[in-house]
């Protein structure tokens, strides 16, 4: 089976700033769950931002092929419509915009792009109900403005719900576990596990091994100073838990 994502020697920096990614190599096939771990400042969030096309970053070298095509040539909204989803570490508030309305607009933008008929209000609400049931989460966030006044846990839950509705091919979860108490972590992790699919790849970016107890990855990578310095299976995460990142930093140096 062909790869979904092929990152080759990717180098990037903040606009006018210092180099952050210094040659990332990573290959992801459909159905796989990858965890990318690493200390603060290693470049984890930069990697997710560059993949999603966030403004403010400059790719200085390397390539990213997504479904065999040059991902970096696409603007952020086109990448999203092609099936790339980023669950934000800090989802922003959009006052006055109803969460359901927002999601339907996003969903229909993708459907238009794929030449599929748009969902009307009734069809959309039916889909919403199905996904709520699948994720086993409540509907209390739907009629509120996007992320406005949401608790940390509610924001992350909302991100996973959006992911479920948009059905991406590649989902990047950026520090989804940060700021969650154990109950919220369980809800969010259950949601992600139910969204595992042979057609879908998931990349989890996290600082802590804790998340991997709930969402068990196929591959674990350690990012340090802009490079992947170690890759392995889920046992790598357990090793890290004991030895810490400092050990790997010196190994990479």
């Amino acid at each position: 089976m062909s790869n979904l994502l092929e990152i080759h020697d990717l180098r990037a920096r903040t606009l006018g700033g210092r180099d952050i990614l210094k040659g990332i190599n990573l290959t992801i096939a459909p159905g796989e769950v990858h965890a990318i771990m690493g200390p603060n400042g290693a470049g984890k969030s930069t990697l997710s931002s560059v993949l999603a096309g966030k403004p403010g970053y400059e790719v200085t070298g390397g390539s990213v092929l997504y479904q065999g095509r040059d991902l970096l040539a696409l603007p952020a909204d086109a990448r999203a419509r092609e099936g790339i989803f980023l669950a934000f570490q800090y989802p922003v508030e959009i006052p006055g915009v109803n969460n359901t309305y927002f999601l339907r607009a996003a969903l229909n933008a993708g459907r238009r792009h794929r030449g599929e008929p748009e969902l009307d209000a009734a069809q959309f609400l039916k889909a919403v109900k199905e996904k709520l049931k699948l994720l086993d989460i409540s509907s209390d966030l739907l009629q509120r403005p996007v992320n406005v006044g949401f608790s940390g846990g509610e924001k992350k839950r909302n991100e996973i719900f959006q992911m479920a509705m948009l059905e991406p091919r590649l989902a990047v979860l950026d520090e989804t576990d940060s700021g969650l108490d154990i109950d919220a972590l369980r809800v969010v992790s259950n949601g992600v596990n139910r969204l595992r699919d042979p057609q879908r790849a998931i990349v989890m970016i996290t600082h802590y091994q804790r998340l991997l107890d709930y969402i068990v990855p196929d591959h674990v990578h350690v990012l340090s100073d802009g490079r992947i310095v170690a890759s392995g299976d889920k046992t790598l995460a357990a090793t890290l838990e004991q030895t810490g990142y400092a050990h790997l930093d010196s190994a990479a140096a």
Partner: protein
Amino acid sequence: MGFDLAMPDLAMPEAATPNPAVTVSADSAETPDTLESFVSAANEGYKYGFVTDIEADEAEPGLTEDTVRFISAKKGEPEWLLSWRLKAFQRWQQMSDPQWAKLKIAPIDFQGACYYSAPKQNAGPKSLDEVDPELLKTYEKLGIPLGERAALAGVAVDAVFDSVSVATTYKEKLGELGIIFCSFGEAVREHGDLVRKYLGSVVPQGDNFFAALNSAVFSDGSFVYVPPGVRCPMELSTYFRINAAKTGQFERTLLIADKGSHVSYLEGCTAPQRDENQLHAAVVELIALEDAEIKYSTVQNWYPGDAEGRGGIYNFVTKRGACRGDRAKISWAQVETGSAITWKYPSCLLEGDHSVGAFYSVAITNNRQQADTGTKMIHIGRNTSSTVISKGISAGRGQNTYRGQIKVMPKAEDARNFTQCDSLLIGKSCGAHTVPYIDVRNPTARVEHEATTSKISEDQMFYCQQRGLPQEDALSLIVNGFCKEVLKELPMEFAVEAQKLLAVSLEGSVG
């Protein structure tokens, strides 16, 4: 002092909407296809920029007492109205145009403009069949539901083309309820006593420079009278159109809601695209008697000028309503997207005890547009209350000023006001300004003012785009969210139009 004299218009209270079908949440999933509409609208630019080739009956350019007499004679007016106009003209001659607004305006040559332009017709049209087909085509382009389409849409329309009211639909049906809805000229002929009783009773001839000018040279407009206890069964609607070049439009609207009655009135405006500036100086007077409710909604889309600020309408409008009885309510809702310059302060005189005023406004300035707009709430009676919600959006090099006055008179025991004034900035070259005047002369008053200024953040845009929304859609979504509290006050058909206009008005302001 200047400010005191200058601003007209009124607004209404939160729960004043009498017809539930009218209040629609603009962003609920039930509102169909609004986002899609943004997209198509965003590709259209200023789509009302066409010029209609119609023979017009015009006054010589310039303004003298003879011009005023000419207009009055053209309209076949009674002597009292001519005297009224002449008095206004005399007042106007002693006044100078106001300078206190935060507007940069090139000097206006009032003698260079034409003060009367009427589509040439032999006599007033007896029915729609007699209206010039070119005119009807114009209205068709504007999407106005005239004639049969009016019936389908359930909207009674009075269309004012340049200065003359062209056709009033639905008159018969309204007549059965005793509701009068006609051109101002017709009202002068057929209902002279009512006009004479109320004309100038809210906005006197000498109120301000532009109101005085209007009072001298107004050529037509709309008149509404709703009898006691009658709830007007449909939205009443006027569309204004400035067609002729170098023409000022000076229409006058007089709306009287008698005791216990209720009416919702819509006003829409467009103008062709021309390189020179056109002047629009209208006056709107509303009178709500005891227990009456008036809701007055405007979507103003006059030509704003091009990206460099050439051309566009100068919009100097005096709008004011008087709650002239106990428990009367007046609500203004406006979406101001057009005009090169907007100078407009829909206000409420809260005379009756327990009367209520409200003002809901969205004003957008893009490119080099300037807006100085807001409201005045004058609390005169006891237990009066007012609500002001203003949303200003500035993009390009636009300058947007909210100017509002809350005045509580000595006898206004327990008056309440709540004002919320939010500004949104898009880009780095625009400006937002808030100028509240609060004048409280009764210690029992409670007056609240909240103001915020924010920028559309890159993070908000990226969040929307990451979910697949194209840039223009993302901007529309965020802006519409910002304006939600106002848009939900608009009647549904206006709310949809307003959302499209927001998208068009902000086209090209990001990226």
